[in-house]
Each structure stands twice: as C-alpha cells, then as structure tokens.
C-alpha cells in the first residue's frame, strides 16, 4: 500500500521528503535503473582510504575510511608470561568499541548491540581459534610474538574504535586491523640483571649495550595470509556491495564474505534476514569479494610502500 501510494506521490513530492517517507520505494526505483542513491553501481564499493601510523603512542596503528565509515585501530604491545600450555606463543586480545559519537543509534552509557558481535567476528577471523589451524593458516603466527620460551612473550592489545558508523562495519574494522598489524613494529628489548625484560630505547642503542638484546632489531610481523571482507545486501534479485547504514536498515539481509589472499573462504556469514540466499547469490557474492580483495590488496600495498618512503 505504502509503495503504491508512494509511486503516485513521487512526482509531486520533494526528493528528500519522498526518501524519508517511502525509503524502500525510493531505493527500489534506483535499483531498477541499476544505480544507487549515492551514484554507485550495484557491485561497486565506496572509496577506501588507509593511512598508517595515525596514533604515535601505539606500536602499530591505522585509520581507514570506507566511504564515511571510519575506523581507528591501534595495537599496544606488553610483555607477559606465556601460559603453561603454549610456552612459546604470544597472545592477541581484540576489542571493538562503538562510542556514542559514531551513530545516532548508540546512546551514552549503554554499549551498542553490534559492538560485541563485531569483536567476536574479528577475533574469529584473525585468530581462528581452531586448534588444528593455529599451526599453519591463521593470519599471524603467534610464535612470532614469543621472546624467551616459557618466560616472556608479547601480548598485543588491538583496540578498534568506530568513529563513524555508516554501514559495513565489519569490513572497515577488519581492514583497519589488518593495516594496523602490517604497520606494527616490534620494539627491541633486552634482559636485565634481574631477568626482567626492559625496552631498549633508540638513543643508547649504539655500543653502550651491556646486555645482548633478545631480538636483534625492530622487526615487523610476517602476515601469512591476509583476510579481506566484503558485505553485500541482498534485496529481491539485487546484490548491493558495501551498503551504507541507510541501505542496511532498509534492506535487512546482509551477507559478509571473507576471503584471504590465497583465495580461501575464511567466513561466509549470513545472520538471518528476510531474503534467502541461493547458491547463485552466494557465488555472486564470492565473485564480488574476489574483485574487492584485489582492490583492497592494492590499496594496502600502496599505503605500506608510502609509509616506507617516509
């Protein structure tokens, strides 16, 4: 009914009013012409920017923007005693925050519903807590975070702040996490007389060292396989890549595909939604993600090489 009356009124009404009153109809009229209200084609993602090293006090950080969705990720390293079960592995703790500034839906004092869900998805994607996988195909080899077996290892705290929530939160969060890890530099540390780990500051790094540093020089983590993701909205027979918050709220069926750089499917996540995903839709979403993976890899590599020039 609303849609029928909407089509009659569309000629007499201002565009903004029509958009607010009949949002679904407004979008469907765009989709008929294979275009979206922001001028993108259906399969095109928004412009993506990565800038590394946005937080100077952190060991690794990145600010990413996908359209208006903005994520700030920072990694802080601390020395910890590894657990008895895995004496030569470090640890990564991932948290995702949605402060009230990011969206009108988030109210001060109450945590957003989406935040713990995105945090859980992120740690599933980055850590892949399956015992068998730990050894060979996670994004980060936790053994690289070890300092002295059984005595000391790095604990990496990855915190991601959502500064502006305009759809596809998981994509932006994962991209910022990946960028922060590729920017992460592990500082030089040495053992002191009491057997404790101390940081070696860069100034007295020269010949004055009394103790042999545990790790010889600043180094970066080897990222074995880098996961990239793309969220799509399914609506009738249309597939819209990288939806904005408005599109997500109107057309509720979301599918998030995560592929890694060796083209393995890391996650295919569809939490309910009114539209059923048939095999052809799944294959289309995977194909769109493959395209997006190439774009994102290029953007990330450019950001890293820019950083090295500086």
């Amino acid at each position: 009914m609303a849609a029928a009356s909407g089509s009659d009124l569309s000629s007499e009404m201002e565009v903004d009013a029509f958009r607010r009153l009949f949002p679904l109809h407004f979008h469907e009229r765009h989709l008929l012409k294979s275009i979206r209200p922001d001028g993108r084609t259906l399969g095109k993602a928004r412009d993506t920017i990565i800038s590394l090293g946005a937080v100077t006090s952190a060991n690794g950080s990145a600010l990413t923007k996908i359209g208006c969705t903005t994520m700030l990720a920072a990694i802080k390293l601390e020395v910890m005693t590894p657990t008895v079960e895995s004496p030569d592995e470090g640890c990564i703790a991932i948290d995702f925050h949605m402060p009230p500034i990011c969206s009108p839906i988030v109210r001060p004092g109450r945590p957003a519903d989406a935040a713990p869900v995105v945090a859980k998805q992120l740690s599933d994607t980055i850590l892949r807590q399956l015992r068998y996988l730990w050894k060979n195909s996670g994004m980060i080899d936790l053994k690289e975070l070890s300092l002295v077996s059984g005595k000391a290892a790095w604990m990496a705290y990855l915190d991601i702040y959502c500064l502006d929530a305009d759809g596809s939160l998981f994509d932006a969060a994962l991209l910022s996490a990946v960028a922060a890890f590729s920017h992460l530099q592990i500082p030089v540390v040495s053992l002191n007389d009491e057997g404790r780990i101390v940081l070696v500051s860069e100034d007295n790094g020269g010949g004055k060292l009394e103790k042999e540093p545990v790790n010889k020089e600043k180094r970066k983590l080897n990222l074995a396989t880098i996961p990239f993701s793309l969220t799509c909205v399914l609506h009738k027979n249309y597939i819209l890549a990288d939806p904005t918050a408005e599109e997500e709220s109107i057309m509720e069926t979301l599918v998030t595909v995560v592929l890694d750089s060796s083209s393995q499917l890391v996650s295919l996540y569809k939490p309910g939604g009114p539209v059923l995903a048939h095999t052809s839709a799944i294959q289309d979403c995977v194909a769109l993600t493959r395209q997006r993976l190439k774009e994102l890899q290029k953007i990330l590599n450019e950001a890293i090489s820019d950083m090295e020039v500086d």
Partner: protein
Amino acid sequence: MEIDRGDGRKPNQLRPVACSRGILNRAHGSASWSQGETKVLAAVYGPKAGTKKNENPEKACFEVIWKPKTGQIGKPEKECEMILKRTLQSICLLNVHPNTTTSIIIQVVNDDGGLLPCAINVACAALVDAGIPLKHLAVAICCSLAKNGRVLLDPNKSEEQNMKGFVYLAFPNSIQSVLPEGSLQVGGEPVEHGIITSVTHGAMSVDDYLLCLQRGRAACEKLSVFIRSSLK
C-alpha cells in the same frame, strides 16, 4: 565404508535427535531439543505489548536471552543471541502482531558441539508451541570439513576442534503446498535450498563450502520431516 569418527558414526549420520514440547508450565511455549549429548531448552513469553527502543513499532519485535550452562554471558553468547534473533525474525510473520515483543529464553543444558543449530531448532519448536505465526520453520545443521576434505555432519565437540573448518547452516523446512510443483522455485532452485543463516569457522575453499551446502540441505530435509512429525 571406512569409519573415521570417534563415536563410530558414518560421515552423514546425525547423532540421535529428540524433541519435546510443552515441558514448562508457566511459559507460553517451551521445548527441549537434544542431539547426542548437546541439550538445549527454550521458553517463549509473549507477544507482550510495546517494542524496545530502536525497533520498528510497525512490526513484531523479538528478544533473545541466552543463558549459558555456567557463568556470565560473553561475546560468543551475544553473537549467538544476535544470530538467533535475526534468524527468528526472518521466519516469523512480523506484521500479524505489530508493536509487540516476544521473548525467547534459551537455556543451554549441555554443550557437546553444534550448539547454535540446536538452539535454532529448539527456538522454532518453542515458537510453534507458543502459537506465534510463522512463515515456515528454520531447520539448522552443523557440517564440518575434516582435514582429508571429507564432509562430516553434526560433529560433536571433540570432532569440532580437530576439523579444518565447520559451517552452521539453517534452511527453511520443505513446504507442503497445494500449489503446482515448481511454482515455488527461485531461479531454478526450490525454496528450501535458500540459506537463512550461515556461520563458518576456519578456512575452506569455496568448492568445499558448496559441498557442505549440498550435504547440509540433504540432512535438513530429513530433519525437517522429523520436526514436522514431532510437532504434530
């Protein structure tokens, strides 16, 4: 056929499934579902008047409360709550009771793998018991992919942890319709082949995922017959 599972099951064999309804006295609808050692209870209260903040008052609203076996709820439980809520919203007729909230309380009795699929199945059974109008049921299953590339259905916890990856899938149950056969197809596929919910853990190739889909659908058809008979 070679048997490579700890409990001697065949790759496509599910654990023994049991479902009972109306087990709680005070709840408007309740059900229990067990699959091997995994057992989940669900209670449905509602529809109660009014919706929560940020929900559309023109539609019925759902609230899922997940109670773990022990301890407080953490991030994994929050995620399960969200997935379950969205899954149930997609199978219910939301326009029948606008501006109401229906609460679904999931109590985990024992977790031995495949918890989320069991929770989806039990929630559906409890919604039917409470008489909430539904479009169709959601039938959920866990498919896992062994290191040798074989698909094993309904793994238990120890199997789950030694797998290359596993997928939780939910499909609509097969609809018994008076319409001529084929009229309910979407793009050459029957409706019950459409995925309502898919959650994966671990890495696999896209072809392996599609293989899991195929096996999952076949298993869900059998499960849906079981659910239909147990809800009569």
